[in-house]
């Protein structure tokens, strides 16, 4: 299984450390008005599940992109 790396941008800061722990194995970088969360996901189901979690925690997702360096160009959100 080759994991693919994605970057998810959400509005504002990620509120607390507790929430970070809840999100699992991801990297969080805070910028001024956006927070970038990057993580590796094996497939679309895992990525969508992760996005559902962000929404459930009240984080507004503004952008999702596949990070280059993997075999195909971005734009893999074809499912559903």
């Amino acid at each position, binding site marked *: *299984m080759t994991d693919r790396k994605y970057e998810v941008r959400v509005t504002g800061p990620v509120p607390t450390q507790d929430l970070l722990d809840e999100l699992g194995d991801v990297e969080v970088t805070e910028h001024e008005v956006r927070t970038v969360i990057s993580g590796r996901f094996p497939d*679309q*189901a895992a990525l969508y*599940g992760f996005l559902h979690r962000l*929404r459930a925690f009240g984080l507004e997702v503004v952008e999702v992109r596949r990070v280059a360096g993997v075999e195909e160009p971005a734009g893999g959100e074809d499912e559903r």
Partner: protein
Amino acid sequence: MRAERAHPAPGCETSAEELLSAARFGIPEPTASYVHRPRLLESLARWGSLPLVLVSGPAGSGKTSMVADWVRRRRSRTAATGWIAFEDGDAFWANVLECLRRLGLEVPAGPGGAAPDAVLGREQLLALVTLIADQPRRWTVVLDGYELTSIEVAREVDYLLRHTFGHLCLVFVSRVDPVLPLYRYRLEESLGEVRAADLEFTDPEAADLLSHLGVSLGDEAVHELNERVRGWAAGLRFAARALAGRENPESALAAVVAQAGDINEYLVGEVLEAQPPEVRRFLLDTCVPDLLYPGLLEKLAGPGAVHNLEAVARSNAFIEPVPDQPGCYRYYPFFRELLRAQLAYESPEKMADLHRRAAGWFEREGLTERSIGHLATIGAWDAVATQMVNGQMVGRVVLEAGRGPIGTLARQMPPDLEGAAAAVVRAAGALSRNDRAECADELRAARRAPAAHGLHEAQRRRSIAVLDAVRGSLAEGAEDATALCEEAGRALGVSARSRSGPEEDLYALAQLSEGIATLRSGDLTRARKALTTAAGLEPAGRFASFRADCLGYLAVVDALGGYLSRAGRTAVESLTAASEAGHRSAAAHVALAFVALEHYELNTAREHVSSAVSCSSLSTDPIASTLLGGVAAGLDRANGHLQQAIDRLEAAATAAGPADPWLADRLSLEVARLNAASGKAELALDELAAVQERQSQSPEASVVAAAAHAELGRQAIADDLLALTREGRPALPVQVSSLLVEVVQEVRRSAPVRARAVLERSLGLAASEGLRRPFFEAGPAVQRLLSDPRLVLEHPWLSHHKPPPPRPGSGYRGKVMRAAAEEGPDLVETLTPKELEVLGHLEELLTTEEIAVKMFVSVNTVRTHVRSILRKLGVTRRNAAVRKARELGLFAA
């Protein structure tokens, strides 16, 4: 869970619903072309003891078939395995509980919410955990097609899995990962995963599938094709359809593989185009409903459609018979979606017509819910509204309280839709949001609107009458409310009580309304009858918020009638139901506060008063808000703030007055009682005169009048009045108060032995319900008798801050008991009523002399009381005693 499923009605409905339920909980049968995939089955088998298994992958990747195969193969072993095929909008917990029930686990009744993400609630969750963890067996539930996106439900699932210690395994089969903390399960190695990459067909598996579908290709060709469709099972099936029957499939394949762009899209087109026109038409005609029933099929595709269907099912890999249901078929979900998309693209008019025909069939079969679902899909809102009224579904809208499928449809209806039916549906929607003003507007519009084509006038009248009764039961004055309920009763007719389904919903709502209205006019017997009926009907089992309301008001009726323990039990049941429904019931809290005050458990009473105050429904509930005023005043009085209590009662009575004369009179009576008890007998009699005009025969009023006359030295009048209070069977508090007045009379007549005998009789009566308040609030004459150590010994329940004598098997648990028990332990010794009274005066910063005057005792007696208060509270100074008493909750609000 859908209504009809839980409650099958006679006739065709039953069989259709049995079909639905078999389709939902049956394990899918393998199709002829199913490919055995040992590598995946072995993985699943290896994870046999894990609590959580995910099978995540895109549509058409063969998830369901593979898991179903695994379940069928392990079925004979020790573990029980259930299956749930979810459809969009299905509730999670309701289905999981039903599935466990079918596996033989005695699961308590399901949650009230039919919304997909309705939570189970803490108490039920704990009950479920215990139930599963205690079983020697292991339970596996496959959740096919449920997308877990609610973090609240996910937390409950997480809790359940972590506390059942491997006795429960959930297998999520879906396109999206559930929002569970999966990384934690991964770290703990308690998660098994089959993901998209695992589900991709290997070349040998692809070859197997193709040959099952009658296409045989060389290894090289299979590899080439499988590469192009990326191991997607559905893609392989489409390719097989495109290639089947070709003389030279390999060369045909070359053309397929050479396609640029999305090969899968191309294959879908190929498959549809390649069908003979009549088969193609048949496929598009029949893709609209989720399940194809025998009768429905002909309705959509004309007579003889069954033969077509059987032919298609034999030759086509995209349709399958429903397990255990001969004659019933369904398309593979992804294929059905494709057909629907194609239909919508080719001919939106035809699609609308097919939905309409399906709706018509479901309506005739009595499956209104499915029918209006089809109508809503094509935006035929006029028809949706008409059918909701004709099918008596408006009751369901109210009962669902904004958390169910019918209410959701009602909300989606365009707000400017005209006509009587739309107005009725909007009125029901307004009620489900507790917006009574808007409900009244819509009902007015619904009455005014002209008769409409297809709308049954009788059903329009019924729906309007019942909705208006529900609205008016709390929003109108007590008298008008009763009239509206009688109107609803007439509209429903005498036969209503023997009906079932949607009609029972309306009947149940009418009964609740009647209970509320008659309670407000003081007819407790009728109120209890109506509320008991409502709470025993089927909708009360299904809709927790409705059950909570019925039980909440029933508790109020019992509390007012002096049945304190029953009121407490019923109120706790009501709160449990309310928490299940995520709903707050002011009535139940008020009943509990009332009961606690009568028990003289002031701390508990205060807690329930603040809980009731925080309920949003309080402001629109005249019963709860008026009685709450009474309880709060009772707490003032217990706290020694007599004037404050009287002011509060008078303000509450004035507020309730015009709409609720009976409730207001209860408060005025209490004012009279307080005045009589504090030596203002004349004032009390004035107050009573006003009340008695309306309630000439009320025993409650007679007791207060007797006390006042006795106070004024009119012994004969008092005795006559007391005799009046013994007629019939007055409520327990009235009997006890009446006896206490008699005690005072006997003391005045210098007959101490008789006084004591009467007092003992009153104690004996009060003991059964733990009714303490009359004794704590009795005047000095009674208090003196009560201080007799022998009486204290015989009636320990009176002086201890504990509930009355244990009632074995009464099931009286929950909030009341817990709160009451918490009050005791900190005190080494309980304060006597006298000491509490002194303590109250200390809090008012009165001096020893002032207290002595107030209590008609000597200064030395007060000093003795103060000393023992200090000793019992373990403090050395008076203000420390007051502070400690506050901490212990000995003072009321």
